[in-house]
């Protein structure tokens, strides 16, 4: 194909550039609004550059903005999300790794059926489990706690993590495992010594996928956590929809960016794993 700048190519690049602007516009608007003063926001317009840059809205969003009755900013809720996401991601990924190992390398009679039954968990709308789950968490005494949320995220993440690892392990030649078994290696030895060392990429994919899902979750957060233990997505929604006093759009935008930073950061540094996770989660093997 010709690579010179023909008129066709110019139109092509113009279209691509225009789309890039479309995708970047909301990010730009969030960023520029967050460093504007309220006067600047009211006087200027959405896409105008800020007249002066101030970080007041950022510090307010972090430490003193009101989300409902409380006025401690996003700070506490940010750490709630960290405390919720890190254990949920680690536990669900580790269990998923072992499960995936079993359903790919140690298939037994009926294991394919069981795997399929497990996969259904990827597809159900979580609304059908909310009511019994709320009741169970209440009876366990962990309603409205971060531990409760961790439990929920681990349980409903297992189907996905198992799927990820299973799809990775089935691509590994059987001979590798067979040879190890003839040499006397057992279930755990094969897993720890042979498979784990080559599983780095799939761990990245799975951890990133789970982290993005759990950090960005709103449904479980809003139903199972109230008040002090709510995750940042719920706090952000409360902040934005609190309708008392003057609406501070710059604070809203700063808070939105704070809520988005961890997943955006992961996307920036490990984007290719992120994409692989999306496609792996999507195109089932």
């Amino acid at each position, binding site marked *: 194909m010709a690579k010179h700048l023909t008129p066709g190519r110019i139109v*092509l690049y113009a*279209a*691509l550039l225009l789309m*890039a602007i*479309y*995708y970047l*516009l*909301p*990010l730009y*608007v*969030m960023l520029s*609004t967050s460093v504007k003063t309220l006067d600047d*926001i009211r006087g200027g317009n*959405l*896409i105008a550059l800020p007249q002066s840059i101030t970080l007041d809205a950022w510090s307010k969003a972090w430490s003193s903005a009101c989300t409902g009755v409380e006025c401690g900013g996003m700070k506490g809720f940010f750490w709630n999300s960290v405390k919720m996401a890190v254990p949920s991601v680690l536990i669900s990924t580790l*269990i998923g790794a072992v*499960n995936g190992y*079993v*359903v790919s390398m*140690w298939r037994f009679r009926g*294991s394919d059926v*069981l795997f399929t039954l*497990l996969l*259904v968990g990827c597809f*159900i*709308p*979580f609304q*059908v*489990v*909310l*009511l*019994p*789950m*709320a009741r169970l968490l209440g009876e366990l005494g962990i309603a409205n706690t971060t531990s409760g949320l961790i439990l929920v995220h681990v*349980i409903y993440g*297992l189907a996905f993590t*198992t799927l990820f690892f299973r799809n990775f392990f089935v691509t590994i030649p059987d001979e590798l495992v067979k040879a190890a*078994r003839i040499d*006397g290696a*057992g*279930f755990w030895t094969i897993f720890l010594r042979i498979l784990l060392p080559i599983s780095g990429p799939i761990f990245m994919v799975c951890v990133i996928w789970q982290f*993005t899902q759990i*950090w*960005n*979750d*709103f*449904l479980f957060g809003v139903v199972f956590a109230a008040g002090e233990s709510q995750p940042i*997505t719920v706090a952000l*929604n409360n902040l934005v*929809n609190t309708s008392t006093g003057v609406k501070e*759009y710059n604070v809203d*935008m700063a808070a939105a960016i704070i*809520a*988005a930073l961890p997943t955006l950061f992961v*996307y920036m540094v490990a*984007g290719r794993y*992120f994409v692989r996770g*999306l496609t792996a989660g*999507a*195109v089932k093997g």
Partner: protein
Amino acid sequence: MSTPQSQASLSALADRWLPKLVLSPTLLISLVFVYGFIAWTGWLSLTESRLLPQMDFAGLVQYQALFENDRWWTAVANLGIFGGLFIGCTLAVGLFLAVLLDQKIRAEGTLRTIYLYPMALSFIVTGTAWKWMLNPDMGLQKVINDWGFPDFTFDWLVDPDKAIYTVVIAGVWQSSGFVMALFLAGLRGIDDSIIKAAQVDGASLPVIYWRIIIPSLRPVFFSVLLILSHIAIKSFDLVMALTGGGPGTASDVPAIFMYQFAFTRGQLGLGAASAMMMLMTIVAVLVPLMYMETRSAKRG
């Protein structure tokens, strides 16, 4: 006990049981928390439960109440509008971008990164950003006004008839890059020699895409449809952040209906019935799609 043979047979025995043992907790969890909970919700939807769950069978009263509830039908209609437009537009934009990016573009990596980053965001963040941009007083409307079109109005966010369309705008923005990535992966898997052969035969590039390449992406279409309809039926966060279901209940969707009746209005039975309807919708949409997907994958 410690002879080599007995150790070997012991470990062989362990290897026979360990896999099942290791898998069983997850299976048990799935059995209780997926299947059991669905059954629990299903049963609840057949009772007269209101604020507290009660377990006496009451037939289909909740479904009857649901079908007589105007708000439910608003939510269903909105899901239809949103689902149709969201899936259609996301598919079109994603495919368009993938085809453009497939033309041996410079800086492809950078562009891909830009197109895909919204997928890393929470729907709550997306909703917050678009809510600000679509703000009728100070948002995009004012930008256009300042550019010399003072009569331009864009107040869909607060217009009961149009609010659901703003959800489509934000949803397409968030998900189209993802669809682009899926199609691009599909395009990269197509053998170059087919295209070259068609070119030798004198077919133009658009014709090649329309007649040869896009039809060969059938399996990708099915996956994309599967994912997008799943996102659409479950959509909750984006609507909550963008319109909150408002103005009034104008942009309600089933997921919001379920949340409000089950958790803020204390109508457990009705909430459970609406959740079961969502499950049935997903099954009704996904099962045929998955069936077609496996069939087309086998043929392809």
